[in-house]
C-alpha cells in the first residue's frame, strides 16, 4: 500500500515537472521543474523496484547514477542560463519575452 502511495506521488511529480517545464518562462524555474520530473521518475522506478519485497539493488544503483547525471545536466543548464543572462540581460528565451 505504501509503495502505491510513493509511486503515485512520483507520477504526480513527473506531471508537475512537465507542467513547469512548459509553462514557466523563467529559465532557472525550468531547471527546477526538469529536476522535479527526473526525481519523480526515480521515485516511481524505486517503488516499482521494491514490489518484490525488499528494494532491488539494481534500480537503486541506476537511480544513484541518474541523480549524479541529473546534477551534471543541471550544472550545464544553469551555466547556459547565466551565460544567456550575461550576454542578453534576460532570463527568458527571446521568443517568450513579454517585453522585447
Amino acid at each position: 500500500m505504501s509503495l502505491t502511495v510513493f509511486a503515485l506521488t512520483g507520477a504526480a511529480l513527473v506531471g508537475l515537472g512537465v507542467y513547469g517545464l512548459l509553462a514557466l518562462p523563467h529559465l532557472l524555474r525550468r531547471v527546477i521543474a526538469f529536476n522535479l520530473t527526473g526525481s519523480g521518475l526515480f521515485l516511481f522506478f524505486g517503488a516499482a523496484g521494491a514490489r518484490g519485497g525488499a528494494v532491488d539493488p539494481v534500480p537503486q544503483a541506476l537511480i544513484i547514477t541518474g541523480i549524479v547525471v541529473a546534477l551534471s545536466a543541471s550544472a550545464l543548464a544553469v551555466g547556459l542560463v547565466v551565460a544567456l543572462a550575461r550576454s542578453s540581460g534576460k532570463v527568458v528565451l527571446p521568443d517568450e519575452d513579454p517585453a522585447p
Partner: protein
Amino acid sequence: MSLALDLALCALILGVSLAAVAGAGVFRAVIFFITYGLFVAIGWARLGAYDVALAEAAIGAGLTGVLLLTAQGRLRRVQADRTERPGAPLPAALAGGAVTLALAWAWFVLPVPEAPDVAQALPQSGAGNPVTAVLLNFRAWDTLLESIVLLAALLGVWMLARDADWDAPLGPRYHARPSGVLAYFGRVLPPIGLIFGVYLVWAGTETVGGAFQGGTVLAGVVLVAMMAQVLPPPRASKRLLRAALVLGPGVFLLSGLAAAALGGSFLSLSAALAKPAILIIEAALTVSIAVTLALLVIGPAEAPEPAP
C-alpha cells in the same frame, strides 16, 4: 501507522514541489526545491533505499541547492526578480496531467517482472553492499560511462567562459567577512566533512555509503572552503587539477582493460581480485567525483569584475 506516516510524507513532498513550481519568486522556488530534496531523501529512507537517500540528500538537495542559489543570486543582479505569469498554462497542465495519468495507469497494469536475485551472486562480487556490487561490478559499464558524462558536462561548463577569461580562476569571486559566519564554517566544517566523506567511501563496500555519496560530501568540503576563501579558486590549466579529474575514469578503464588482458572480458572482475579492485577503483573515483562535482557547481572561469 506506517501508512499514515507515508501518506503525510507524500503530502509534504507534493506540497513543497507545488510551491517550488507555482510559488511566487525564483528565490522561494529554489528554497522549496531544497526542502523538497530533503523530504524525498526521507521518502527513500522509508522505502529502505538508504544509499539512494544519502545520494538524494547530498546531491539532489545539497549540491543542486548550492548551484541554484548561487545562480539565483547572480541572475537577480541582471533582471529584477519579478513575478511572472506562466505562459500557456492550460496546454501545459493538460500535458502534465496526461503524463501523470499514464504513469498511474502503468503502475496498476504492468506485471511484476521476474528479477534475478543479486543476493545470490553477492559473495563473488567483492562487495558486501549489494548496491556497490551492482555499481562497480555487475553494471560497471553504467558507472564508467557516468564518470565520463561528468567530465563531459564539466568541459561544457568550462566552454561557457569568455575567451579573454580562459586563464582566470574558475568561478565567481566570493566574499566572506573575516569574522562572519561563512568564514567560521569554512574553518570548522572541512575537517568534519573530510572524515565523514572518507568514512562513507570506506564503509560503502560493506554497508550504506559509496564513492558517489562520499565524493559528494568531499565536494561540499571543497565548496565551503572556496566560498569562505580558505582555498583559492583553481585555474583550469593546472596539471594537477586535470590529473585529479581523469584519475577515476582512467583507473576504471585501465582495470577494465586489465581484466580483458587476464582472460576475462572487458570490465569483468574475477572473484579473487574483485575486492581489492573495487577498493582501488572506488578510491580513484572518489577523488575525481569530488573535484568534478565541486568544479561543476563553481562554474566557468571568470575574470574579476572591475571595481565600480
